[in-house]
């Protein structure tokens, strides 16, 4: 991609799938491009508006059950994102966004809803308590080297089928519920991590950006991000140690 062209980042239905800070992922992508001399633009794709198929990036955030069915209905009627994904645009989906990208998802009410089938995953309600807390994982080494850190808050149990691969292995937390977190196939990537995930995981942000701009990107030196990552890792270690102590009793 030539640097004169603008990288266009679509925030998909931020009015219903933007529950808690996930729009920050768009901020992170835009700033990391601008700091390197690229031009970038964030486009809000609100409910009820046509979804263009011309964007480079599509971001889906978290939301509640009803927002998910609404999003599926809207994106099925306006399939711009799916068309763009078909030609290699990058899609990043968080939490509820992950679930709607799958074949189907079952809400806490037991009703199964059809998804967008962009990822070979299926989601059912987990049997245990709601997964709320820090999530620490080791990513698929084919994609990333550094550990991944985020905050999860969901009830879903997600199974990844043969058409996709888990994004990472859980070190601490719940993730998909079977020892893995998230899924990816080609340039469609999904995770349960809020945080926002790209703020906490710059290597992940740059991987997705390199796909969008078509060239590798030199790392940016922002020490406070490492401070944050160390702090979150230490917090997880402290919680894990406490849990172990409790189990001994």
């Amino acid at each position, binding site marked *: 991609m030539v640097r004169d062209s603008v990288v266009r980042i679509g925030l998909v239905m931020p009015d219903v799938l933007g529950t808690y800070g996930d729009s920050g992922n768009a901020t*992170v992508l835009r700033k990391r491009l601008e700091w390197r001399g690229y031009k970038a633009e964030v486009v809000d794709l609100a409910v009820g508006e046509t979804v263009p198929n011309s964007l480079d990036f599509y971001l889906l955030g978290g939301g509640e059950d009803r927002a998910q069915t609404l999003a599926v209905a809207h994106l099925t009627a306006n399939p711009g994102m799916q068309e763009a994904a078909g030609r290699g645009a990058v899609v990043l989906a968080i939490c509820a966004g992950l679930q709607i990208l799958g074949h189907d998802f079952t809400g806490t009410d037991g009703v199964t809803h059809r998804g967008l089938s962009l990822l070979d995953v299926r989601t059912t309600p987990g049997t245990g308590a709601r997964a709320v807390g820090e999530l620490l994982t080791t990513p698929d080494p084919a994609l990333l080297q550094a550990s991944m850190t985020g905050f999860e808050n969901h009830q879903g149990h997600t199974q990844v089928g043969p058409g996709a691969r888990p994004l990472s292995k859980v070190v601490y937390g719940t993730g998909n519920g079977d020892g893995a977190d998230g899924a990816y196939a080609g340039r469609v990537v999904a995770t349960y991590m809020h945080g926002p995930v790209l703020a906490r995981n710059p290597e992940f942000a740059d991987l997705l950006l390199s796909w969008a701009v078509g060239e590798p990107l030199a790392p940016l030196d922002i020490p406070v991000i490492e401070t944050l990552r160390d702090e979150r890792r230490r917090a997880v270690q402290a919680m894990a140690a406490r849990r172990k102590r409790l189990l001994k009793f």
Partner: protein
Amino acid sequence: MDPRSSGLDVSSSHLDGDLPTRTAAAVKAGNLASRLSKAAGRAGGIIGGRVTLALDPNALGQLSRDRTIALVTGTNGKTTTTMMLAKAMSVIAPVATNHTGANMPDGLVAALSTDQTAPVGVLEIDENYLPKIADAVQPAVIVLLNLSRDQMDRVGEVRHTERNLRTAISRLRDTTVVANCDDVLVTSAAIDADRVIWVSAGGNWRGDSTSCPRCGMRVHGGATDWYCDCGFARPTPSWSVVDGKLTSPNGESFELNLRLPGSANEADATLALAASTHLGVPLRPALERIRTITGVGGRYTTLTRNERVVRLLLAKNPAGWAETLPLLDKSPGHPVIIAINGREADGRDKSWLWDVPFERLRGRTVIATGERSADLAVRLTYADVAHTHIPDPYQAIDSMPPGGIELVANYTAFRDLKTGLSNGS
């Protein structure tokens, strides 16, 4: 509506001696526990409430019987509005109130047990406890301020809270809801009530008003003219406040002239006045009492440390920040310190920092402090706000030259700094 339609009979005798034996014993035990706790140098009130509730789970209903109870709830402004409404009601009757912000059942029981003779109770209540509490006390009035995303790791999504409030409110009889109709979620929660007094109280945060709580589709328009294609739309208010100027249902219009700053406090005052007027308090004297308030639980208080004059502000979620950003002193060289903690009471998920337009602080002197200041510093970095990162808040204050400082903190950071700075830390 006749503003005096539910005027109080303040002459009637009250409570003392009226409680059922079990409740009376439970209250006595609670008050004893509270005194012992205070004697041991602790806060006291809550433990008393806990003891009372353990001995008599129905204590709250019994303590509310034959009193006029007003409940104040919403995401932001509960403590302030409760104080304002209590002041306004005190024009006509003694008031029992939980002014310290202890807004769960034990705190309410403590407030009502401490003052058993006051014929009026003005009680701040956590929005997620409202259904249970409203069933128990059958309030005369519920003041519903605003609803927005807050501590989702602890309390879940605000739309879920709205639906619970809606169900609880639609069950109540003989309750008047005073509600901010500029807030889409508040309107949805209140509109099924038997009686509603709508107040146009504004609000700078629209992030949770974009999709319809009734059908999920997009809400059109702004705070004062919003509607959804499904037919759900902003009701016509009988009270309103614009730029500090209040208009009553009689068409009276005058400046609020509060000593508390900002539009959020003007909104709270207008909602409190709509409630007190409904309960029979004349408007002017009620406002006079509200005007005497200069601080609420340490908010807006100025404290001095080593020649640094620190004004403490509380902001704990995106909506709170939307009200706080315009308040910050804009004089050059006036630094802003932001303190963020992430304890249980604050919520451990700090993702919401990304819903705050910190970009507006560009060009100012900004310091990130507090136990979760690294999260904030990353957010400020991506907002292109030059800042210093000093996790210890006292060091952060001392790093600034002598003079005025705006210090905005979230819940436990605010609480600890208020105590620490007051004690000369």
